[in-house]
């Protein structure tokens, strides 16, 4: 009897999960559908949930007419830079925060979490002023990488710290007694064991960097250096908004990332929960 109840409960929970997933994924679906519609069918009443005649040429159009390739290259450049800075600085920081216990470590951790709280739209003005006076804005993409990294760092440090904390301290101590230095033990023992956690966190950071808008929009004035998130808005013109082109652009922009996410989904979940499982 209780098994039956259990089954029914699972069925209800599963249905709720499906409905919520549908609500969340609907905009994505609408993006793909809209990108294949004609201008008139986009605004058809009642809305068309499946395009009658898919307009594949919209994709050809945006590849030929816009500089989508250049935008995507810039996005990848920025996302890669953000990931590198975040992982290299963040992994070291996370290790220290995982291994040392003191009031100062707690204060540092709290400060890092505070960074996460501050919205980019608030931070961008002081960053703009500071970067201008420091001359960093001579290289706007580098400036943007630094600004985004400051924003992604807390998230990465928290995830990475959990990964490090799940590694027993005795392993490092064994390495020290075996003849390794502290740094050597970190590189040879701790890093390989935390690899999954770090890779997953790095992937999430890459996605954040790839989709970032606020800092890129504010810090990069030169159109040729802007990432795809900015390039997309070029289709939003005062008089004509070509929605199908915007959606085709957006689809081109996010599909590779989505594909990577779906393929690596299992690894990502296990990486995120590796601390709990051990």
């Amino acid at each position, binding site marked *: 009897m209780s098994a039956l109840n259990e089954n029914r409960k699972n069925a209800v929970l599963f249905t709720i999960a499906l409905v919520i997933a549908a609500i969340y994924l609907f905009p994505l679906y609408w993006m793909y559908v809209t990108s294949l519609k004609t201008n008139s069918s986009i605004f058809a009443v009642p809305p068309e949930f499946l395009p009658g005649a898919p307009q594949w040429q919209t994709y050809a159009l945006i590849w030929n007419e816009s500089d989508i390739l250049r935008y995507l290259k810039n996005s990848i450049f920025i996302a890669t830079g953000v990931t590198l800075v975040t992982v290299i600085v963040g992994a070291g920081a996370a290790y220290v925060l995982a291994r040392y216990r003191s009031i100062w470590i707690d204060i540092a951790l709290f400060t890092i979490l505070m960074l996460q709280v501050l919205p980019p739209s608030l931070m961008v003005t002081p960053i703009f002023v500071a970067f201008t006076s420091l001359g960093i804005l001579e290289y706007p993409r580098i400036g943007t990488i630094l600004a985004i990294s400051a924003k992604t760092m807390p998230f990465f440090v928290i995830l990475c710290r959990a990964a490090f904390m799940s590694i*027993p301290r*005795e*392993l490092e*101590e*064994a*390495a*020290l*007694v*075996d*003849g*390794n*230095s502290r740094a*050597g033990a970190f590189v040879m*023992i701790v890093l*390989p*064991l935390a690899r999954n956690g770090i890779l997953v966190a790095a992937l999430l950071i890459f996605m954040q960097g790839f989709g970032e808008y606020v800092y890129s929009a504010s810090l990069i004035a030169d159109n040729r250096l802007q990432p795809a998130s900015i390039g997309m808005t070029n289709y939003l013109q005062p008089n004509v908004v070509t929605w199908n082109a915007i959606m085709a652009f957006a689809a081109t922009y996010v599909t590779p990332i989505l594909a990577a996410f779906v393929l690596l989904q299992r690894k990502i979940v296990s990486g995120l929960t590796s601390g709990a499982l051990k």
Partner: protein
Amino acid sequence: MTATDQKPQIEFIDVDKHYGSFHALKAINLAIPKGQFVALVGPSGCGKSTLLRTLAGLEKITSGTLNIAGERVNDIPPRKRDLAMVFQSYALYPHMNVRDNLTYALRLKGVSKAERARKADEVAAVIGLDNLLDRKPRELSGGQRQRVAMGRAIIREPKAFLFDEPLSNLDASLRVRMRKEIRALHDRIGSTSVYVTHDQIEAMTMADHVVVMQAGVIEQQGAPLTLYEKPVNRFVAGFIGSPAMNFVPATVDDTGQTIRLDLKGQPTIAIARRFPPGTHVVAGLRPEHVDIGDPDAAGYAPIKISAVEATGSATYLFSDDDPELIIVAAGGHSARAGDTVGFKIAPDRVHLFDPKTGITLGD
């Protein structure tokens, strides 16, 4: 013997360790000659593991001097101390196979790959892991992991072996076997070993020299039987020996040569020394030193039995008293719960302690 052989291999001189306001080790003095097997034993939190960790260099000592092979190592990092350590959790590197685990230290030393492989085979044969060299630690049983941890230590040929409760994760029968194997290995290699355990039987059976610690202090150190026969205080007396020594408050009689135990019926027993009449003492009676006989026979004091546990090899009798007495009788003893039996103990086997300080009286 050369002069260096007589110098202790490991020497703690007035070593103190503080963690903030917590005083973990207090004025530790301990000299371990080369080739000796030393056990550090005590209840949890007594500082025995901390002492081992300071020796390994995983913890810095706050003051005092620590010498290894005649060299002061206070500020020497673990990797330069040339010690091998076996951890309670074994601490095998999960991402390396058994061979790489065994030879990790050699790899760090820059030993060639061929030489490492040869050594790994050699050690694997010694510890009986020949066919497991390519397995990962997670594919091994607890006993096999323990052996890898041992192998990882002996492959090094270090100045000393440090063991941090290496057997506590094994089941009872395997533990008894490994006890003998570790000791045999120690004798074969002729190494110096420091072994931390909370199990006094392990300490007594394996070590040449036992160090009993409590609250960061060495209470007593010496040969296992010395600690058993001549404990310096009540703590050591109660910690060494199983089942533990009975402690009974008592008062010295008018003759000064007998004591009246504070038990039901106020039994009187003879002691080997003379004390001022009326002195309050605590009598320590080892369960295995108490003789059981006819309660009416001369020299026997009556005692009522509340419970009996027969293990076959010995029978444990529990008295109906406060404090309860435990007596070890011969296996197959016929006493039952509710019986009254007579008990007797040789005067020279009665330990006497100061009731306030717990220090052994006499001698």
